[in-house]
């Protein structure tokens, strides 16, 4: 009977995601006829406004694409421009970049777990409500978030749109004592990260295993963050310069974020994809903590992303502590850069997944053309596919509110960044 009704559910705003989007769902004869994640975040046209700007301005410009992951944008851009100019940065600078990037993973993951995702685990509307009943867990999360921000601040002066990164290295290296003091604080926070992982394993819901490809960077030695080859669990293994030969961005009518497909199919980037492709690169302590949770891995349940984020907080604390505990400021915070005409590619692992940049420069180092593929555009097709499967399995006969909440949870589990892409979720269920 329910299928005969025509119902419209209109939820004017998706809570606890970054950006503007909507979900259209049309159900008829008990089947999904149409499902679209509509993103209408206003385009800010960054690739065009980079044209004609000096290479030296690029780290400050691309940071403004996303207030939550500015470091990722700065890192991919610096890497790409250094490649275009044939500049090699040295080990101490690479270590500083890795430590700073760890700060962004810690703050972004801690923010997502506690302020955006965890209220769903208990049925709260917000972390502020959740804090009344679970004050210790929320405070622990906010403290981890603050520690991540402090780590970014050490290298960049502030945590949102930091100012320290330049093409060739950094404008300034932290003072010895400042670096080491933070290293000790990071080490002291490790038990919190272990407790967080155990807590997430016990409270986060599980979904269903689905069939899809994982895509992430794969590095010769490290858990991937700042570099590596682009790999999938289906045999893909390419250099960052070959991204465009295998991945294709398509515009769809309902979104200002382009859909990116791997050989015509949706795929997943982000913490779960990274973890599944790089479990052999996890430090022992992190792998051990994961095993003790009893959660079966590998998993193709995207709700396991929350656990992957917690494990990555643990990893990032460890890595940054290791780099900073014995920190000595490098002789020079940057290497000399001489611009030239060229093309460079950059690929790093933003908190939400693979962030790929390409720049063409002229002889003075001015940007001729830029292309940026953020993680959320790569995950968009996968989110739609997941919603279709998850809602079908959940039961389309359920009430509109239940369907809406389930849809929101699925979307939030991806931590979509709709400013890099959604703050308007407008779910319309049409039943015929």
């Amino acid at each position, binding site marked *: 009977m329910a299928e005969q009704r025509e119902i419209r559910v209109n939820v004017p*705003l998706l*809570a606890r995601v970054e950006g503007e989007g909507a979900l259209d769902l049309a159900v008829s004869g008990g089947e999904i006829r149409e499902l679209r994640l509509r993103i209408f975040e206003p*385009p800010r046209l960054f690739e065009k406004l980079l044209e004609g*700007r000096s290479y030296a301005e690029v780290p400050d410009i691309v940071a403004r694409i996303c207030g939550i992951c500015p470091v990722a944008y700065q890192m991919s851009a610096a890497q790409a421009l250094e490649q275009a100019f044939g500049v090699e940065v040295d080990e101490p600078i690479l270590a500083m970049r890795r430590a700073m990037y760890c700060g962004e993973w810690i703050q972004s993951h801690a923010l997502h777990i506690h302020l*955006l995702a965890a*209220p769903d685990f208990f049925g709260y509307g917000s972390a502020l409500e959740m804090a009344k009943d679970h004050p210790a867990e929320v405070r622990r999360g906010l403290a981890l978030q603050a520690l991540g921000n402090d780590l970014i601040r050490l290298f960049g002066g502030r945590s949102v749109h930091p100012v320290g990164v330049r093409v060739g290295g950094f*404008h300034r290296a932290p003072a010895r004592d400042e670096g080491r003091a933070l290293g000790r604080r990071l080490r002291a926070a490790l038990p919190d990260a272990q407790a967080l992982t155990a807590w997430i394993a016990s409270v986060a819901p599980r979904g269903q295993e689905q069939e899809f490809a994982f895509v992430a960077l794969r590095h010769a030695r490290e858990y991937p963050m700042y570099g590596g080859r682009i790999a999938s669990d289906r045999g893909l293994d390419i250099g960052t310069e070959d991204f465009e030969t295998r991945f294709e961005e398509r515009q769809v009518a309902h979104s200002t974020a382009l859909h990116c497909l791997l050989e015509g199919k949706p795929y997943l980037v982000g913490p779960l994809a990274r973890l599944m492709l790089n479990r052999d690169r996890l430090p022992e302590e992190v792998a051990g903590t994961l095993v003790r949770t009893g959660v079966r891995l590998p998993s193709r349940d995207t709700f396991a992303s929350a656990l992957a984020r917690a494990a990555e907080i643990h990893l990032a604390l460890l890595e940054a502590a290791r780099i900073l505990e014995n920190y000595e400021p490098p002789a020079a915070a940057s290497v000399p850069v001489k611009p030239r005409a060229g093309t460079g590619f950059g690929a790093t692992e933003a908190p939400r997944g693979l962030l790929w940049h390409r720049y063409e420069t002229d002889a003075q180092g001015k940007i001729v053309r830029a292309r940026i593929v953020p993680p959320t555009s790569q995950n968009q097709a996968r989110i739609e596919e997941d919603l279709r499967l998850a809602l079908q399995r959940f039961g389309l006969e359920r009430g509109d509110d239940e369907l809406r909440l389930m849809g929101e949870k699925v979307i939030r589990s991806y931590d979509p960044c709709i*400013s890099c892409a959604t703050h308007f979720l407008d779910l319309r269920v049409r039943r015929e």
Partner: protein
Amino acid sequence: MSAKPRVAVHKFSSCDGCQLAFLNLGDALLAAAELVEFAHFAEAGPVDPQARVDVAFVEGSISTPEERERIRQVRANSRFLVTIGACATAGGIQALRNMHDAKQWVAGIYALPEYVSALDKVTPIAAAVKVDLELWGCPVSGSQVLAALSALLAGTVPPPDEDKVCMECKRRHTVCVMVAKGVPCMGPVTRTGCGAICPSFGRDCYACYGPAENPNTASLGRRLEGLGLTRNEVAARFHFINNAAPAFHEAGIAAKERRRG
């Protein structure tokens, strides 16, 4: 039932970075939630875009027809309206497209530009509705938003901080990067509030906090030329994060026109 003051945080065209001034407050965010009711703050959870509030914080600029309508509704529902950040206060970096053919730019990125709805010009909030307080900065800081909130709830509008970054460098004993190293710094025309971070990193201020009071942009423009920048490069220094702030917009144009003169 609740007698707490009601607060909203609204997002327009932006990077979300200024909302983080709240979300990064840590314990102070929990404390603030005891003192005020966040009636609408989508990223934090509460969703009620039509909420009537005492203070509305607005992030982002107006760049689509939908946003132009929505900001009027926000104004009508808010006792005080506070813009947070360069986008809301001056249009933000995306206002750079105002100096170009926006349609062509959209066509340069999107295969099907007809599906993308965008106004020809990106404008700050004050171009559409009355604004009670403007907080400059890209991004604004936690202390800026908390200070504004406390003052407004006490019934007063805090005086704007319009000093130049140079003053802050002096207070912090930061060696002047322009005098000592010949770095083309925007500090002499830029408003403080950031803590003069960039010069403390040995680099140029790039004017993310917008124009200071009475900025002598012409004089700085000549100084930057003296340091070896071309006039187009001088113009690009003004036409950056706060390119649509009138003082910087005009200074950039003047720098370019001197080239023809």
